[in-house]
């Protein structure tokens, strides 16, 4: 397939067919903000922070998913784009604990978002789930970027231990029938912890160290003291 030439913010760029607007912009040295996007996960276009204006197209398009077209004229900035990005960030800050998401905090500052814009707003609070020795789940920090579900599924592990529950604002991530992690197909590979952008999934060791627990105490608690007895069949 022939290469495609398009214009991004007035500058011309030529890329192979099938390239996304996000990657084409990168080639020009222009960064489009992203939250849910991850180079090693399937792109789903969920956060919509990466939306850009494309001439002749009514809605804004997600740069992470939209493929370039010959002669396309793209604007990665502008009033519409900035309003959408700022409002999405403000709504996210009103619903989720972003205290351990430095990249998103930077966007909040960059787009002059008012973190307190929505008084009396329902938050997505959830008790911390601590049901296995390897990692804890603090879904009050979950931004529903889907990366954990993706890597547990077809992006990496093909284990399918976690998935979505509920719908709309009350969507959450969890295990089937809310079973504790050790009773699921989870093999504790840590892929999900690795891709989580907000600290909603955190290794237990890291969490305990943060709480001031010593390494010695951690090893005691997570490796257990008892010898395993072989169960007779």
């Amino acid at each position, binding site marked *: 397939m022939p290469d495609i030439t398009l214009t991004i913010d007035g500058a011309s760029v030529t890329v192979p067919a099938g390239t996304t607007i996000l990657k084409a912009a990168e080639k020009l040295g222009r960064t489009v903000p992203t939250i849910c996007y991850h180079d090693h996960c399937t792109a789903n276009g969920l956060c919509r922070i990466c939306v850009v204006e494309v001439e002749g197209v009514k*809605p804004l398009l997600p740069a992470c998913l939209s493929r370039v077209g010959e002669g396309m004229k793209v604007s990665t900035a502008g009033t519409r784009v900035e309003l959408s990005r700022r409002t999405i960030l403000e709504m996210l800050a009103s619903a989720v604990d972003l205290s351990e998401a430095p990249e998103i905090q930077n966007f909040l500052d960059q787009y002059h978002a008012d973190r307190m814009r929505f008084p009396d707003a329902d938050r997505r609070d959830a008790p911390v789930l601590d049901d296995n020795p390897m990692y804890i789940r603090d879904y009050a920090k979950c931004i529903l970027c889907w990366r954990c579900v993706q890597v547990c599924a077809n992006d990496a592990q093909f284990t399918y231990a976690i998935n979505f529950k509920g719908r709309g*604002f009350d969507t959450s991530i969890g295990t089937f029938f809310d079973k504790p992690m050790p009773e699921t197909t989870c093999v504790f590979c840590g892929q999900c912890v690795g891709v989580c952008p907000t600290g909603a999934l955190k290794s237990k060791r890291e969490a305990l160290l943060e709480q001031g627990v010593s390494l010695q105490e951690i090893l005691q608690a997570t490796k257990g003291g008892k010898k395993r007895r072989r169960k007779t069949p």
Partner: protein
Amino acid sequence: MINNVETFCNVPLIIERGAADYRKLGTERSPGPKLFCVSGQIERPGLYEVPFGISLRHLLFDLAGGMKPNRRLRAVLMGGAAGAFALEKDLDVILSFESLSAAGLPLGSGAVMVFDETADIGQVLKRLGHFFADESCGKCYPCQLGTRRQHEILDRSAAGKLLAGDRQRLSDIGATMVDASLCGLGQTAPMAVLSAMKLWPKMFNPQHSGRGDS
């Protein structure tokens, strides 16, 4: 791509009668019949099959019996939940794709909901807000978050307890959902609210009664 039953039902008509015959009904750019579901504060609510090209006034007053005794029309929600409000001044608009589009009103699914002067528009918007918050699938952030935030503000509006800044919040949430949502639900969920903000701006002042009387 055909994705609604009404369109499917027209296909055998076109095949049986032929295109020329089918085109005897309707207008140049909107041929054939259309189902309009008339509901709300009107004498004879119901499903009306009419040719494209009649006026809204004809549908509501000649076919559906007009307003209930001694009641004046306040607004008509055109298109469905994801619709916009028409006023008395819009009654002569022709019901067709092209004419409604020119008038800035949606045809949508053909739902036409009538509100008279006793209707509490604040309550109407609140219920629409609840509907969209329930229907949002939760995939994209503008709609997953926006429909909830919008619903909260519409609750305040219906109770007459709007806060300073709520008008701008609704406007920003609405613009973001229209521009950045992943699908048509998010893109149209704010339509009725944005329409109300244009037609009855005083309704969104803080401490307004919330009914949409002005």
